[in-house]
C-alpha cells in the first residue's frame, strides 16, 4: 500500500512536470495536486527510509505548483507577429480587389 502510494505519487509528479512544460495552463494543476496529496499521505505513513523518497516527490510537486501559478500570473498570452501570414494577407487583399473590380 505504501509502495503503491509512492508509485502513484511519482507518476503524477512526472505527469505534472510534463504538463507544466507543455502549454496546458492550469490543466497541469490536476496531476500536481494529486501528486501532492499522494506524496503527503505516503510521507506521513512511511517509515524513515521511504519518507526521503516521499519528501523528494513532495518537493518536486510543490515546486511544479509554484511554476504553474507563476506562469499563470506573470506570463501573458501573446500572439507573435507572423510575417508570412501578414504577407499572405496583403497579397490576398490585392487579389480580392482585382476580383471585385471584375464584378
Amino acid at each position: 500500500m505504501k509502495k503503491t502510494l509512492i508509485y502513484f505519487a511519482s507518476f503524477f509528479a512526472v505527469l505534472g512536470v510534463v504538463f507544466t512544460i507543455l502549454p496546458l495552463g492550469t490543466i497541469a494543476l490536476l496531476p500536481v495536486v494529486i501528486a501532492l496529496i499522494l506524496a503527503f499521505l505516503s510521507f506521513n505513513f512511511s517509515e524513515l527510509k521511504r519518507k526521503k523518497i516521499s519528501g523528494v516527490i513532495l518537493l518536486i510537486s510543490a515546486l511544479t505548483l509554484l511554476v504553474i501559478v507563476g506562469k499563470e500570473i506573470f506570463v501573458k498570452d501573446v500572439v507573435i507577429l507572423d510575417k508570412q501570414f501578414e504577407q499572405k494577407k496583403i497579397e490576398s487583399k490585392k487579389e480580392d480587389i482585382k476580383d471585385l473590380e471584375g464584378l
Partner: protein
Amino acid sequence: MGKGFIILSFLLIANLGFSQIKPNERLVYAASYNMSGLMTHIAQVTMQTETVKTTKKSYLHLSWEAATFSKWDSFFKIRDLYESYVEPNTLKPSLYKRSTFEGGFTIAEKYIFSPDNKTISSCVKVNKRPETKKIFSVGSGSQDIISMIYKLRTFDLSVLKPGQSKLFVIVFDQKEYSVSVKMLGREKVSAGNLGKKDCFKMSISANTNKLKGTDKNLIWLTSDTKRIPVLVRFSIPVGTGQLVLSTASGI
C-alpha cells in the same frame, strides 16, 4: 478547434436596420477550450471592419482572424482568416474568402456571389489536392457566415421575447444551412475594456451536426445600439469552449 468552432463563432455573432456597422471597428477575443474541465487559453480571435474601394464602388471588408498564442504554435498552430466584402448599407456579400491553417491542415475557399445573389462561383483547395471549381445556386437571402454575423448585429433584438427566434440561411462548405437564433433573455456580462454590460443572451442552432446540444451554443450581444458580441460559448463534437471579449475599439 475545427469547423464547428468556426461556424459557431460566426453564427454566434449576426440582423436588419437597427445598428449600422462602421468601418475600423476592432474586437479582440481570447479563445479558450475546455480541457479536463478547465478552460485553457489557446488563441486570439480578431474581428475587424474596414472600407475598401475599387474604381467602381466602395465595400465594407469584414474579417475574422484566429491565431494561436505563441506558446501553442509549436504544438498546434492555427492561422485562420475569414473575409467578406459586403455592400456597406445592406451587408449583401460580393466576395467571401476563407483561408485556414490548423495544425498543418489547410483549406482555401473563395466564393464570388453573382450580383443577383442567386448563384455562387466557388473555388476550393484542400491541402495539396487539386483546386475544385463549382457554380451552385443559392436562395437570394443566403449569406456567407461572416456577413451574417454582422447582419445579426444590425437587428433590433429588443423586440424579440424569450423563446422567439430569427432565421438565417448561410453558405458554408458549398452548402446552405438554416440557422436559428433564439432569444433567451438578458444578462449582465463582463465585456473586457467596456466593463460590465447588459446583454441579450441568445442561443444559436443550425441544421448541422457540427453544433451539439440544445441551448449549448450561446452568444451575448450588448443591448445597446452597438450590439457588440462580448461572450460566445460553444459546444461542438470535440468539446466545448468560449470566446471572451478582451478589447473593443473603433465602435
